[in-house]
């Protein structure tokens, strides 16, 4: 019912937009008829009108705002009907809305249908999405898999482009299809724009299927990095189409251009990232412009690299990745939240608009349909992608520790969705006889991949997973033991480490800490130990929660304390069992999430923060217990146990008794920085900081008494390390 209402609203809005635009047209014409530029508030120059309607004045921004509102209402409408997004991915729904609106506009008389102009797409709609992707990129995972991702992105795209281009050319040569006028270069040009996997589409579809994080980063990283290849090949073939002859020198120049595009994009991104980080170092007094500088610099990096015809996507991603760690340290908490929230907002709106426009632009007059061309395009896209993935994976698996299984390969191949980038690129082509055919073919491929592949990928993923057929709900012991096993796995995985290139990572972390951070991060915010930051945050939180919650931690029973008589072996009542189950599900600690999942709709809330706080406090408690045991127990330790909530208490204990700390188990000297942020940041900083926390910075902290007195406990630890 509500959904109908929402759809009706959407329809009403779009028709109203039509009405106002046509009215706008009409009024524009009449005002032109009066050749003197009369103020519309006057009528025939003599009377003063009480009520005026001046649409042309606000036309452009008004229409833009209406489109954006349409986009958001459409999104709202889908989520009101809860079952729908589970079956049909959002991108499909948005395209359908776009088709609807496009149909309405098409049906209206003298309206030229708006379509996704290339400039609007590349300059306004794409950057927010890519920025959002880059800012929330799981960095450690990304760099661990960088080799594989590059392999897929570069080699895979080359493979696809030439495969699709050449085979399509072959098809065009076949007589009866009547496509002989498509030259080799044009076919290759078409291949270059259709081969690339689109980050927007991939993001929106993969968000809803929950594949393991490695798979996600492979497909997603590939979609981001293949932009360099696409840009180069596209421009190359386009230039070649103009040139009468092509020599070997030109081909070499093309290869050189590829490197320049890629490296140039990255360099531009890094430069802007550092400038942004440096700027935020000084914004202490004017905190309101901090989010602005983040967005501005990223956008500038994109535009600058587009100016040089470098890869804008790579620039903006590099910029976001570079500036993130420094900016997050420098800016205030509110700015951090603002940045994240605005990013989500803009990227969400952008994505919605892109899909709607895709739908709208489909409904046009000028389509050139050719069954063989289009069907073969589709076929070759799928075929070459599958072949490429299989072939490259077999090579890549020789170098990887963590092999990519067949299931993964299938998902990688199947998840190669095309989207709006191909669409815009095809519009950007110079006019030639077969352009309409290319446009139609591109639209068909995009719609097919988004609809068919997008909708079926989720059921296929579930099908491929190992199904555990459970007839009965898990018993209590199974639940408990399984959770135990999960914790074990997480722990052992952490112990065995992640097999990236530790050597380079260590080197970079060292360089980062020694030079970059001191330069780019404000003096009082040097993150010598993120555990310090963490405890600061904890204390702030406690100050608020003190009055509300009950005691946070129960003192642990010493072992052997609760010997119970043998329980009777009577079966429990079913509702008791249920209550046990609910207790368990609600209270069992969750497994640490390694990477934050992308979520288009909200900032991911780090639900684990509470649990981690508890676990850590318990450990501190047991450490405090250790302390008392070593010192033979004093009254301070009792105070410590009874008022665990006030960390200040336990800290002052530590500061008075320095030597005792040496024998106690040292606190883990850093906690992943992500726990500091209220929204889940990147856990990826954690292991990297592992190596860098034993720092002389601890000693500088001791000199600053006032706010840091409470944290002296952990300082002692660090200075002892």
């Amino acid at each position, binding site marked *: 019912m509500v959904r109908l209402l929402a759809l009706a609203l959407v329809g009403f809005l779009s028709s109203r937009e039509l009405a106002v635009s046509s009215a706008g047209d009409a009024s524009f014409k009449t005002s032109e008829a009066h050749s003197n530029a009369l103020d519309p508030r006057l009528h025939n120059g003599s009377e003063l009108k009480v009520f005026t309607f001046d649409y042309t004045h606000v036309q452009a921004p008004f229409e833009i705002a209406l489109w954006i509102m349409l986009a958001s209402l459409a999104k709202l409408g889908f989520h009101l009907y809860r079952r729908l997004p589970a079956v049909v991915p959002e991108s499909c729904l948005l395209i359908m809305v776009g088709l609807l609106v496009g149909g309405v506009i098409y049906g209206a008389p003298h309206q030229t249908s708006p379509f996704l102009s290339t400039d609007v797409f590349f300059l306004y709609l794409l950057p927010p999405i890519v920025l959002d992707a880059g800012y929330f990129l799981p960095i450690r995972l990304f760099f661990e898999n960088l080799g594989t991702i590059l392999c897929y992105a570069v080699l895979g795209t080359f493979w696809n482009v030439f495969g699709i281009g050449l085979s399509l050319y072959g098809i065009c040569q076949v007589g009866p299809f009547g496509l002989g006028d498509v030259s080799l270069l044009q076919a290759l040009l078409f291949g270059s724009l259709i081969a690339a996997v689109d980050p927007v589409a991939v993001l929106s579809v993969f968000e809803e299927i929950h594949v393991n994080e490695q798979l996600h980063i492979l497909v997603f990283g590939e979609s981001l990095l293949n932009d360099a290849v696409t840009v180069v090949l596209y421009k190359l073939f386009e230039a070649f189409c103009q040139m009468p002859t092509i020599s070997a020198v030109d081909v070499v120049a093309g290869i050189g251009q590829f490197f320049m595009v890629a490296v140039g994009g990255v360099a531009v991104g890094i430069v802007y990232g550092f400038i942004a980080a440096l700027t935020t170092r000084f914004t202490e007094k004017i905190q309101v412009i901090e989010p602005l500088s983040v967005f501005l610099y990223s956008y500038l990096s994109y535009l600058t690299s587009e100016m040089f015809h470098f890869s804008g996507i790579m620039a903006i991603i590099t910029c976001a990745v570079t500036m993130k760690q420094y900016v997050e340290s420098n800016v205030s908490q509110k700015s951090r939240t603002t940045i994240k929230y605005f990013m989500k907002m803009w990227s969400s709106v952008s994505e919605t608009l892109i899909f709607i426009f895709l739908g709208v632009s489909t409904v046009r007059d000028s389509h050139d349909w050719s069954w063989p061309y289009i069907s073969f395009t589709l076929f070759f896209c799928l075929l070459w992608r599958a072949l490429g993935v299989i072939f490259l994976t077999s090579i890549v698996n020789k170098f990887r520790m963590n092999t990519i299984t067949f299931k993964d390969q299938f998902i990688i191949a199947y998840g190669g969705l095309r989207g709006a980038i191909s669409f815009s690129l095809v519009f950007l082509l110079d006019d030639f006889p077969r352009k309409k055919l290319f446009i139609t073919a591109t639209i068909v491929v995009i719609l097919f991949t988004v609809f068919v592949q997008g909708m079926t990928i989720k059921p296929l993923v579930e099908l491929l997973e190992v199904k555990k057929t459970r007839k009965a709900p898990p018993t209590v012991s199974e639940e408990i033991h399984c959770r*135990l*096993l999960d*914790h*074990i796995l997480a722990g052992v*995985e952490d112990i065995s480490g992640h097999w990236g290139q530790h050597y380079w990572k260590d080197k970079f972390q060292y360089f980062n800490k020694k030079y970059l951070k001191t330069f780019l991060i404000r003096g009082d915010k040097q993150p010598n130990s993120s555990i310090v930051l963490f405890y600061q945050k904890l204390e702030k939180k406690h100050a608020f929660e003190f009055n509300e919650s009950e005691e946070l931690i129960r003192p642990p029973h010493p072992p052997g304390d609760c010997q119970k008589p043998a329980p009777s072996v009577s079966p429990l009542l079913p509702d008791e069992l249920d209550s046990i189950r609910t207790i368990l599900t609600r209270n069992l600690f969750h497994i*640490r999430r390694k990477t934050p999942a992308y979520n288009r709709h909200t900032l991911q809330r780090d639900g684990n923060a509470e649990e981690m706080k508890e676990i850590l406090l318990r450990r501190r408690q047991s450490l405090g217990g250790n302390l008392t045991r070593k010192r033979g127990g004093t009254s301070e330790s009792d105070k410590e146990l009874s008022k665990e909530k006030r960390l200040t208490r336990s800290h002052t204990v530590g500061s008075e008794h320095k030597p005792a700390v040496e024998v106690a188990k040292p606190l883990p000297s850093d906690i992943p920085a992500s726990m500091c942020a209220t929204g889940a940041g990147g856990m990826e900083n954690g292991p990297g900081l592992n190596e860098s926390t034993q720092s002389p910075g601890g000693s500088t902290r001791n000199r600053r008494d006032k706010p840091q007195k409470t944290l002296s406990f952990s300082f002692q630890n660090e200075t002892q390390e």
Partner: protein
Amino acid sequence: MGCNASTLAKIHNVDELILETGFSSSHICHLYNRFHSLDKDDKGLLNRDDFQNISELAVNPLGDRIINNFFPDRVDLIDFNSFARTLARFRPVENSPKKEPDSPEPINSRANKLKFAFQLYDQDKDGKISNNELLQVLRLMLGVQVTEEQLDNITDRTIQEADLDGDNAISFEEFKKSLEKVDVETVLSIRFL
């Protein structure tokens, strides 16, 4: 810190280790590098503090116990070989059907994986999980909102379900049986091992 023959040469009894654990030589190399990166003081051995330095373990509720599992009784330092052997238990299980019936059980068999988990519970190493030990682990794994009474209920229920011979404790056999429906081989396997 690459992975090559010289790294392998530094390890004692490399071939024996490879045979016993089933790792390939490149895996051993990577583990060795990891061992060294954990070993801050370059002792060639790891103590408990080195493990504590792994930040994620601090927020794992069972972190301390997992670390203890790496150290056999009363030993405070482990060398690379025992490190590798413990980790070898988490190798994914190969589905090789041909196995001689009298060959020793591979280190990453289901039973050995479960043994690791069992040892987490059984701190006093008497081969049984008593009510008390279970209670401790549960307390570690559960949040604060759970009252003592509820904890006791859950513990009782767990033991009831698993205890077949009525001794009010869970032996290893009973533990294995209670988890027979769970796909332990997949849960306790680390892909890159």
